[in-house]
């Protein structure tokens, strides 16, 4: 686990807690809204730590195993702090047919350790621009393996 907090412009600790409390109150501390609340918590903290999950379980009056079970079921929830940069290689069918496999291989080779969280996406909905990768929110359309590798190799410093 990376102990350093990610630089994501997240509000100070107590402020986050207040916002999360408010989100839970808005849903009347109801377990039905667990997924909404997990989304809010991840937005505020960048990821879902075990202590955070336990706290939510207590607040929502749910067994901790239920909260962990729900959170780990869904791909979008993270349990480790995100790194400084994020890259998504789309593996939708159109991208796959246009060589996303090679793109991913190049990205895996070049993504510098500790700097990039590299994930794959299942269709980002821009199939006309396949293959596509999204680096720090910026879509790279019809990207070639070499160009993506260059971005991930550290030349891109945000």
């Amino acid at each position, binding site marked *: 686990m990376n102990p350093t907090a990610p630089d994501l412009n997240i509000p100070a600790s107590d402020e986050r807690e207040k916002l999360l409390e408010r989100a839970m109150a808005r849903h009347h501390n*109801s*377990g*039905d*809204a*667990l*997924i*909404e609340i*997990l*989304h809010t918590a991840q937005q505020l903290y960048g990821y879902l730590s075990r202590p955070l999950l336990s706290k939510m379980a207590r607040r929502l009056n749910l067994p901790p195993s239920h909260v962990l*079970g*729900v959170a780990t*079921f*869904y*791909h*979008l*929830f993270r349990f480790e702090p995100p790194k400084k940069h994020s890259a998504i290689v789309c*593996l*939708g*069918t*159109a991208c*796959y*047919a*246009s060589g996303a496999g090679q793109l991913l291989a190049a990205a895996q080779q070049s993504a510098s350790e500790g700097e990039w969280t590299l994930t794959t*996406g*299942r*269709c*980002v*909905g*821009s*199939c*006309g*621009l*396949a293959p*596509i990768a999204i680096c720090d929110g910026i*879509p790279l*359309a019809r990207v070639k393996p070499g160009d993506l590798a260059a971005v991930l190799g550290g030349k891109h410093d945000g």
Partner: protein
Amino acid sequence: MTADGLRQSREAELDRQSRLKNRIACCSVAGCLAGGGDAVRAALAEEVKAQGASAEIEVCGTGCMGLCSRGPLVRSSAGEITYAEVKPGDAAAVVRSDLDSLNGRILRQSDPFFAGQRRLILANSGKVDPEKIAGYIAQGGYQSLLRATSEMTPEEIVAEVKKSKLRGRGGAGYPAGLKWELVARHPSATKYVICNADEGDPGAFMNRSVLEGDPHRVLEGMAIAGRAVGAQQGYIYARGESPLAIERIRTAIDQAQREGLLGGRVFDSDFHFRIDLRIGAGAYVCGEETALIASIEGKRGQPVLRPPYPPESGLWGHPTLINNVETFANIPQIIENGGDWFAGIGAPASPGTKIFAVAGRIRNSGLVEVPIGTSLRTILFEIGGGVPEGYEFKAAQTGGPAGGCIPAQYLDVPMDYDSLTGIGTMMGSGGLIVMDTSSCMVDVARFFMEFCMDESCGKCIPCRAGTVQMNEILGRMTSGEGKEADFAMLEALSGLLVEASLCGLGRAAPNPVLSTLRHFRSEYDAHVRERRCPAGSCRMGASA
């Protein structure tokens, strides 16, 4: 809002638009934005301001115009011209309608890509700003809801939908009217309407584009459904991976509530209807209706055995109507023009139009809306412009991970639910991916099997363990280690998954394998018996 209010609001917006000399609508959905559409729109707005023409030229956003591969697209109402591949530097030329300097990037409505389509669901895309409710109202929006609440009884609405013979656009094609009737007839006092916007098929972006480009159409369809079945609460379950669609739905719900088109006493009637948004968190199986319901209830998105079906016992045990985005988007026009009108479009057994997301090795990729029953050849080679020079068509993949591949000899198949099932694939939600001869079909089957394996929820053993086994076999085959006995094993496992899986994910997971085995058996043989990949693109081909 009252009936008069709706009319006034419509007239005011039409009047405002008629006083403009030109409306420059910039595509503002995911595809064109990824290509730099935001900067283009900003440059156009800047240019109009610089020319001091803000009073007579409006620059606005709009929904998907279809030709995503040539984006960013900009449409000018003066002359109905669409400009392709617009860059911020072209702003002055677009504003002045200087056609010479945009030569080669001018598209007309008479071009085969546009002329070959029949855009009903996407009628507003290219005209209406998805972030402004006035634009939707100006095009006749919410008139159908007005009719449904003031002139029609719930029974009449259901009858009209039944008459239209509209089939669910989520993939299975279940008649929408029958589903509505089941929920409407249920005596329960509490009922729900859910819009399934968890479009998860890789290569499918129709629903997302409808929500991003014309969200009010879906809200109106849901509200009409609520009126018809007796529900007061609706939910849209949207995919967490589509942030723009989520934002647009939120904006649209707020606007509709503010205008009194959703909420209490809609059009001064006794009809109350609220819509809330629920956001998925990345689980493909949540497109299955019982898994989706579990997810809205805040649980793991695992399906449960049906029956009982949701119309009987759905969200929190109450009768629930679940339809797909595109199904709801069809409703306003059915109420406006009547079920008979709709039943006359497209194929007799499955009327209406269908949006396809055409992508892969094709000249014009993007969104195409055609009457159901249009041939695959027309979609790909007339509207789609065919495969680019230097490539040869090999197969079209439909139906996503639950579908199959259509080889060249079936290019004339009419694209309707039953014809596609007949050749071993399915309509699915509308993804249509073109592959050329460099695609290895065994690898394509492996790609989808890996997808199903990753997305299996793990509840039932046939799907959880079967997808792993099948993925392993296909992996072996594409690495040159396939065995003769693998064929029998693949077929046995396929039968097991189809027969014994709990939900549609497992039952349909073998489809890509079965369809490629049926149409491309020789490619499998080459991998296993000759240890070579004819296409040269799978792992084995790449290393050889």
